[in-house]
């Protein structure tokens, strides 16, 4: 019995260290990981598709006259990335940030304020300035002067598992 205990001790010593040194070293997330959502107000057109499909309704859209205020209650976000899938402009995406623990609930409430204008024919709000600017740019949905529309009106996105995780640092603005 003593021999077997000795053998066990040798096995344990040979196994090495298995514990992650996590809080003192940065952790790596797998490539399919969906973390905290992030958005870009310059790309958003205020269509409300994300708020329509959000299962816990953590995206709330509020129309205040010609102001569209979108509130993200990230405390109840389940990180399903449906908002990323339905967004036609890729204005919202999931990052690899998982360290969202906090002692103040107000840290989990993000907000986006957009200036909208109302159509004279139908009376519904739509976003004007940056959307029209993007019509003339080459990169907007692959359409430009003299270019055929290869991708169609709504671009087909690759599924999320083939997308590399976007880091929190935003790409440099052109």
């Amino acid at each position, binding site marked *: 019995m003593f021999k077997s205990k000795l053998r066990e001790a040798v096995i344990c010593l040979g196994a090495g260290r*298995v*514990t*992650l040194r*996590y*809080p003192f070293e940065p*952790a790596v*997330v797998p490539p399919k*990981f969906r973390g*905290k959502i*992030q*958005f*870009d*107000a*310059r790309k*958003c057109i205020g269509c409300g598709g994300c708020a329509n499909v959000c*299962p*816990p*309704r*953590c995206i709330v859209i509020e*129309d*205040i*006259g*010609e*102001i569209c205020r979108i509130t*993200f*209650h*990230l*405390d*109840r*976000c*389940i*990180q*399903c990335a449906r908002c990323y899938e339905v967004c036609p402009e890729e204005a919202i995406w999931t990052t690899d*940030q*998982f*360290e*969202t*623990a*906090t*002692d103040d*609930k*107000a*840290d*989990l*409430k*993000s*907000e*986006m*304020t*957009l*200036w909208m204008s*109302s159509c004279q024919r139908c*009376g*519904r*709000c739509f976003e004007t*300035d*940056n959307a029209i600017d993007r019509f003339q740019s080459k990169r907007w949905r692959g359409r430009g002067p003299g270019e055929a529309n290869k991708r169609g009106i709504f671009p087909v996105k690759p599924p999320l598992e083939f997308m590399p995780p976007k880091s929190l640092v935003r790409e440099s603005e052109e």
Partner: protein
Amino acid sequence: MIRDFCARMVRNSLWLFHTNCGSCNGCDIEIIDVLTPYYDVERFGMKLVSTPRHADALIVSGPVSRQVAPALRRVYEATPNPKVVIAVGACAVGGNIWFDTYNVLGGTDRIIPVNVYIPGCPPRPEAIVYGAALALGLVPKKVTPQKEKHLPPGFDLDAYLADYAVNPRDDLP
């Protein structure tokens, strides 16, 4: 002297009492995962105890259902002071998809005060370790709210909101 000794002991080891308040067991599995040798939250002196009278911290998972809310209140009162309440998971933090359901309170902070929120559905084990380290003051807080605006140049948002509060234009849909 005894008081200082006790305070130092409490600071160095946090004994946890795990309370399931209607959780789907996803967060509970992740909490058990944190206690395994791979993540090993016992490095910080944390371990699960079987009664709230021995505990320094409560770990709450699940949206607090109406049936369990008085029991959670009693568990909170049975825990000796000073105590820390850690809400694990999107249910315990904000109610998840049950935030406005009739039989669920929707969040732990509707019935007891919460010190550390760990959102996620379920949170990664690393996220729970991070939240535990945050409760002990080992790591800084990293999350900040994202507030973005896209307005015409020179637009006074506060003046517009104040004007809209006085005379809302209802003809806009």
